[in-house]
């Protein structure tokens, strides 16, 4: 194992070995389970709801989509904000940051490994929600052809592929939240404060996006294009929407990772 991957493995072990984070992941995976059993016990009548709930009885795969859509505004960004807010500030708070830097770990490498761990966590959290939803959905409702938003039926295989695409799209957008969290985390020694600040920026973005009078601002908001994941369920796929959403998230990732690097690279560590 190379030196970098050994450090990354240790970082992942810190995240995934921590009981608090298991609890968080358990909460994330509880949502699709609750949805699946609730729909099974009390199937919705008729079609045409704004969410994917009504489609579940036809195809269990939609439990995964419904869970992702429900967790996207709060639970998923909260999980990523908590992990990323903890990244640097948590080590500073414990005092372990000074010992890591004295090992020595180069500051750029530390940030890179911390962010890589955040990315892996964001992907894992998204895939976990989808996988649990898929599992319970298929067991309780069965699979089969899936009906797209535009009404066309596609095969189970293509449906799964599109679900995977949606996971990737959402994970990339959550990585943008993670980049903001990494930056905020490099400013403070309070991990909870960093997580809350990251959450406020995410929630604030949703709120501003809902105020029509601020339309000029909307294209710049972090969460503005998150719902473009729906474009992956159109026929044909709305690649323009997906692409602009990914570029948007990518810009956030680049800007905030660069800011974290500029800030942390020269910061006096007095914790």
């Amino acid at each position: 194992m190379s030196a970098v991957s050994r450090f990354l493995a240790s970082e992942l072990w810190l995240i995934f070995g921590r009981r608090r984070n298991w609890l968080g992941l358990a909460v994330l995976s509880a949502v699709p389970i609750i949805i699946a059993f609730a729909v099974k016990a009390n199937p919705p009548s008729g079609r045409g709801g704004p969410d994917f709930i009504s489609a579940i009885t036809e195809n269990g795969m939609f439990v995964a989509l419904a869970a992702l859509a429900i967790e996207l505004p709060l639970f998923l960004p909260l999980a990523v904000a908590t992990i990323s807010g903890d990244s640097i500030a948590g080590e500073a708070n414990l005092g372990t940051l000074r010992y890591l830097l004295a090992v020595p770990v180069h500051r750029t490498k530390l940030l890179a490994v911390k962010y890589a761990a955040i990315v892996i966590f964001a992907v894992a959290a998204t895939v976990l929600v989808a996988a649990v939803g898929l599992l319970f959905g298929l067991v309780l409702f069965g699979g089969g052809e899936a009906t797209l938003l535009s009404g066309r039926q596609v095969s189970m295989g293509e449906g799964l592929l599109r679900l995977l695409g949606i996971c990737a799209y959402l994970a990339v957008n959550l990585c943008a939240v993670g980049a903001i969290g990494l930056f905020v985390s490099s400013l403070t020694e309070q991990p909870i404060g960093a997580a809350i600040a990251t959450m406020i920026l995410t929630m604030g973005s949703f709120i501003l996006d809902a105020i029509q009078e601020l339309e000029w601002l909307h294209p710049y908001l972090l969460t503005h294009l998150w719902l473009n994941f729906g474009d992956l369920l159109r026929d044909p796929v709305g690649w323009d929407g997906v692409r602009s959403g990914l570029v948007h998230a990518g810009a956030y990732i680049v800007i905030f990772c660069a800011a974290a690097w500029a800030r942390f690279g020269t910061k006096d560590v007095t914790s």
Partner: protein
Amino acid sequence: MSEAVQTFGLSKRFGRQLAVDSIDLAVPSGSVYGFLGPNGSGKTTTIRLLLGLISPTRGRHAMLGEDMPGAAGRVLPRVGALVEGPAFHPYLSGRDNLLRLDAADRTALARTARQRADAALERVGLLAAARKRYRAYSLGMRQRLALAATLLSPRDLLILDEPTNGLDPQGTREVRALISNLARDGATVLLSTHLLSEVEQICTHVGVMHLGKLVAQAPLAELRAGVAPRAAVETAQPEQAASVLRQLGLSDVETVPTRATGVLGGIAPEKVVEGLVHAGVPVRGFAVVAPDLEELFVSLTGEGFDVSG
């Protein structure tokens, strides 16, 4: 002798306070350097500067013969450091905490990590508690774990900030013995402490910080020689004894209710005893008091152990 640590006009300003003021530290290779100073005198800030945790406002420094912080990647793996008390992940065991630090070290071999961690734990007497979570450790155990972390790899330089803090007397003795052993094996030790007894027992060199300045720096023997030994007479007649001491030529004669003291200078202690007996002074006890490091320390820092502002 080459220097393991050398600073050139190293300074650090925090806001309006000059925490470290243009110090020229010189820690000779192979020495055990006692870094003394009242709380808040700038010792820890200096150590943070040495390790590159904070950047200097002015000045520069070199460690193990290479310029820092440029050569940090080559130098710091050979440096074990304990800075401002232990700090570990509370929900990991002692051993896992060491493995975590080892994983961060790109020069350390993964293959031997477990073995080296256990050897370090063994060396500080913590192997029995290796699997216990850090949060359940006592202060003394935490301090030992921090010391174990400095021993994970072979080191040429150890920078230890108050390593015996929180240890019981037994632990304190063990740690002193450990430091002496490390020094015997050729490592240089920079030992920051406010315990003068620690310095007297194990240090070869001393540097004294006061209000951010390095006010003294010398081999311990040299520093000791600079302070004259005193004769101390225990007696019920201190005034009478004092006048005899003055007659014999002792300087700086002082009296307290049951005791008279004076600087011996070149006068033989035997002569003093003889003179006292001849003069009929009722002597209960007589001693030559070696220069006390504490007095020296107080004379250098003025205010003794008060916190520097």
